[in-house]
């Protein structure tokens, strides 16, 4: 119901303006109750279990699988993923979709462009805050977003919206034959800690239309978003959960040729790693 109110009042406002304009009176039109859009910040705060997440730092990982117990160590060089199609949920369950909401969340070392052939790099970057703008004023009980890019844009790299671009290494490169976006990319080095330790690099990526999926976050109590309120939504992204595989050592490359592992990796993002820390709003 509320959704309708907002939508309709917008149209009524315009209709009012229209009448005034058409009749050419010199009345000054004053809006009684401005219904203004608000914005909120969503933070995707990467963590490793209980610690802060940092690149290039060794994290211990105890692997228990049917073959036994193993001591692994992970060092990460890259965590990048597309967040898209943000929708806010109203208390009546209806949803407000934010147009053009496509964001790249990333924490990465320098990445050589085209394997370094041009002597160029994508700069190291850390970006975990996303400012979502143009949200209709209201009280919201939760938020939904997707990891990845829906088929319309995934299938056509020339369509522009939000931050989507094939220029930042999150398209094509390792998915040449799909000519589409890489949805998530996590890589680094893993070490098997034993008498003579062994190390190898790992590249764990997801992509392709089948992997496009949505996450719902429910707030503990509703937050208010409008032009008069400051709000933010803090999410935990637990990288220790992202790497939760039964056989990580033998699967150091996950991508289009390992669809089942991509399914698992997508599920690790949506079902295990990403969760709510806090969501709050206060008057400005």
């Amino acid at each position, binding site marked *: 119901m509320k*959704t*309708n109110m907002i*939508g309709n009042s*917008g*149209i009524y406002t*315009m*209709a009012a*303006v*229209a009448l005034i*304009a*058409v*009749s*050419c009176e010199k009345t000054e039109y004053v809006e009684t109750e401005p219904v203004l859009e608000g914005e909120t910040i969503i933070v995707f705060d990467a963590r490793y279990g209980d610690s802060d997440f940092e690149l290039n730092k060794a994290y211990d990982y105890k692997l228990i699988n049917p073959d036994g117990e193993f001591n692994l160590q992970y060092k990460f060089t890259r965590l990048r993923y597309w967040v898209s199609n943000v*929708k806010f949920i109203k208390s009546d*369950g*209806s*949803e*407000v*979709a934010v*147009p053009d909401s496509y964001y790249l969340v990333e924490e990465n070392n320098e990445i050589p*462009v*085209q*394997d370094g*052939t*041009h002597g*160029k790099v994508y700069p190291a970057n850390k970006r975990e805050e996303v400012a979502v703008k143009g949200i209709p004023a209201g009280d919201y009980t939760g938020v939904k977003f997707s990891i990845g890019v829906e088929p319309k844009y995934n*299938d*056509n*790299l*020339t*369509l*522009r919206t939000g931050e989507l671009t*094939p*220029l930042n290494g999150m*398209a*094509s*490169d390792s998915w*040449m*034959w*799909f*000519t*589409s976006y890489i949805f998530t990319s996590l890589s680094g080095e893993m070490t098997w800690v034993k008498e003579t330790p062994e190390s190898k690099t790992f590249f764990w990526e997801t992509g392709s239309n089948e992997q496009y999926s949505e996450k719902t976050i429910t707030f503990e109590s509703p937050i208010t978003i409008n032009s008069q309120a400051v709000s933010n939504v803090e999410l935990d992204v637990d990288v220790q959960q992202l790497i939760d595989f039964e056989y990580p050592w033998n699967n150091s490359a996950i*991508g*289009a*040729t390992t*669809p089942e592992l991509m399914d698992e990796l997508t599920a690790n993002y949506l079902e295990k790693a990403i969760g709510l820390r806090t969501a709050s709003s206060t008057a400005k």
Partner: protein
Amino acid sequence: MAEKRNRKQAWMYPIVGALLAMLVAQGCRKETPMPEPEPSGPEPYTLAIPSHFPPSEPAADNPLTVRGVELGRKLFYEGLLSANGNVSCATCHRQELAFSDGVAIATHGVSGRPLERHVPVLFNLAWASSGLFWDGGSKNLESQAFGPLTHADEMGMDLGLLETRLRESADYPKLFSDAFSDGITAANVAKALAQFQRTLVSGNSRYDRYTLDGAGPSALNETELHGLSLVRQKCGGCHSGELFTDNSFHNNGIDDDFSDDSHEWIHRGRYRITFDPMDLGAFKTPSLRNVMVSAPYMHDGRFATIEGVLDHYASGIKDSEVTDRLLYQRDGKPGIPMSGDEKEAIVAFLHTLTDEAFLGDRDFANPNNTKK
């Protein structure tokens, strides 16, 4: 439901707004002068579709315009699009060979390393509705262009550098702003290339003139007509219709072992896109048009001659679970039996599918070499 409704309302604002603007303009003409008439958009390009061809679905997000097609043509022949400045799309896709390259596996990309598959012909792409590449992995020409542009063994280009180079060139800034409102972007490079490639229509071979006019100078002789009916009957299950392709994917019995999982499954055909075991070794049916100028054949260029292809269909079909059932005889034996005469008739007919007008069409040639 609710979400849909919201979207709809969001859409309505500009519409309501536009209506308002009109009302305002009409109601208060004296105070608010009529807005300047909208500049009448870029000039559309009308694709000439042969009357016996099926309709082609226009690309809604990238309509053909005269300027866009012209720019795409220039870009298709442009070496600046590659890392070393020497490789253009046309290096591997040569017009006189129906935009293929005449070798089994190309080594003429920027790295000089062999590619993993044979270069396909490029024509009638406005009908290629089931994806591009031999396995159909790329969904449309717009996205496809990013493949060769960035592939280390094709053009090896960094898209940022591509934009810079075009911006710094003498001609391109104007050509792009004439064709696209947002000027030079990597996306517009791909859009322009896609537009040009959609204009590559081949439908003016002797066979076509015969089909459209019947008797006359183009009439097919008896052998050729025999060949036509043999092709319709024996090959038409896949190389079907006026396009001589069903734009679909089949395993045509050239391999029966798909254990090679190297190169990210490149040898497994359509399977690497669908993960459907029945798609192992299935590739997109190529058209039979212009096939007499586009040897060698198949996704890896393994057959050097058309006779080699016909021998394969007659006696070389490998029997496996995934071999297309159309390649079996009634008694269950693999192969499409063809006598020597029948093979000759088929080859005679295939020659009538060579579209000389297309292969020599100046509108598709390098604009920097030919007078328009």
